[in-house]
């Protein structure tokens, strides 16, 4: 998408799907997924036809995230959900995410949750300097400008979006 609007992607509602049977969470911006990229153990990035980041899949999502997201306190969080996500049935949603390519799928997955900001960081062990919006509340990061070495994601309003999925 060619645009000079810095908020273009920040306004796109995320599409979230959670499969309780496999404890798999997928978050996308709605673009068709063409290829996948292993960022860290259990964290797979999805790319669209233009090679742009379209979202991610996290395995063992509830197991990994629920203890931390449970620290969320609506009265103390400074960031409010601005663009509600679209909840999508997991049936058929994961088809394009099964084949994983990538360089570091065994990299350690670091998870950081900040209740005061309701912000979730999912990173491999490499630091990142370059970032870009994937959709509303979701930013991808890499060490290089063209995003070839994706290092992780930051999801804002994480508990506000994910706790309803995990607690149903």
């Amino acid at each position, binding site marked *: *998408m060619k645009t000079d609007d810095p908020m273009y992607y920040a306004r796109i509602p995320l599409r979230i799907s959670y499969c309780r049977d496999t404890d798999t969470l997928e978050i996308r911006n709605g673009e068709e997924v063409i290829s996948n990229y292993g960022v860290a153990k259990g964290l797979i990035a999805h790319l669209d036809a233009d090679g742009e980041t379209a979202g991610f899949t996290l395995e063992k999502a509830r197991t990994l995230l629920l203890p931390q997201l449970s620290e969320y306190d609506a009265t103390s969080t400074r960031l409010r959900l601005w663009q509600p996500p679209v909840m999508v049935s997991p049936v058929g949603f994961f088809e394009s995410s099964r084949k994983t390519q990538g360089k570091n799928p065994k990299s350690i997955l*670091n998870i950081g949750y900040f209740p*005061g*900001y309701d912000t979730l960081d999912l990173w491999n062990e490499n630091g990142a300097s370059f970032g870009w919006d994937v959709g509303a509340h979701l930013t991808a990061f890499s060490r290089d*400008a063209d995003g070839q070495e994706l290092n992780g994601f930051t999801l*804002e309003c994480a508990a506000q979006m994910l706790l309803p999925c995990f607690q149903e």
Partner: protein
Amino acid sequence: MPSPDDLKFTNYYHSDKRDHPEVKEEWVAYVLAKPTHSSLDRGRMVYWRYIKERGHWLKVVVDGEEVHNAYIDSGSHTRQWEIPDEDR
């Protein structure tokens, strides 16, 4: 222009799970003093400015009076932006 020493940062910015290895605080001060683009994003102000030394646009997110995040913005919109003469 504010000194980097005058900047206040959120706990999130300096949390040990993140790092900003290639973002100098003097760049953050420069962006905040002379932004060329700005936007209100979910209650936070966001500022951009081209950093000549780095050759990219720096995005600085401000929560209240504190710098919440800062990173090189490689979003496609920055490729459409014109670099100010003084930053060339």
